[in-house]
């Protein structure tokens, strides 16, 4: 019973921490993109494309952690 509880706790904490990392990274990315667009509005399109690509890559890394947490939670029994 205690292992079950610890497994679920671990899964929840892991998912939360992973989201903190992703949100921080993407937040900084968005800030840099805004600043770049503010300095040179002509390159807004290119900056937007690169921002979306980088955000997807960061999110991909986060979803690795999420998959591990889901595995932990569903196989905990």
């Amino acid at each position, binding site marked *: 019973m205690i292992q079950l509880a610890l497994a679920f706790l671990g899964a929840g904490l892991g998912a939360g921490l992973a989201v903190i990392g992703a949100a921080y990274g993407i937040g900084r990315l968005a800030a840099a993109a805004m600043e770049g667009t503010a300095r040179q509005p002509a390159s807004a*399109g*290119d900056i937007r*494309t*690169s921002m979306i*690509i980088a955000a997807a890559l960061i999110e991909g890394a986060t979803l690795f952690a999420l998959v591990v947490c889901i595995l932990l939670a569903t196989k905990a029994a």
Partner: protein
Amino acid sequence: MDRNHDDDRNPEEKHAGMSGFARAMQAAGPYLQASYSLAGGVALGVIAGYYADEKLGTTPWLLVTGSVLGMALGVYAFIKAVLEAGKRPRR
């Protein structure tokens, strides 16, 4: 979107038409591959140690030694790859 104006420099170049992002990724390619080699070395060490443990039935010590050897191998591969990437002629 604006066309890539780097083409005006060298239209016959094989990389003509590539965006700046793609060129940057291509220049960074060998270094990325070096870090994947590091991860691959550690992974190989851990997997080999784990399966050797299962077969020989020893305690987790084989897994530990396997992972340490894997880390050493990964770092060696990483350093070799970075040195070679630095020696390649840069445009």
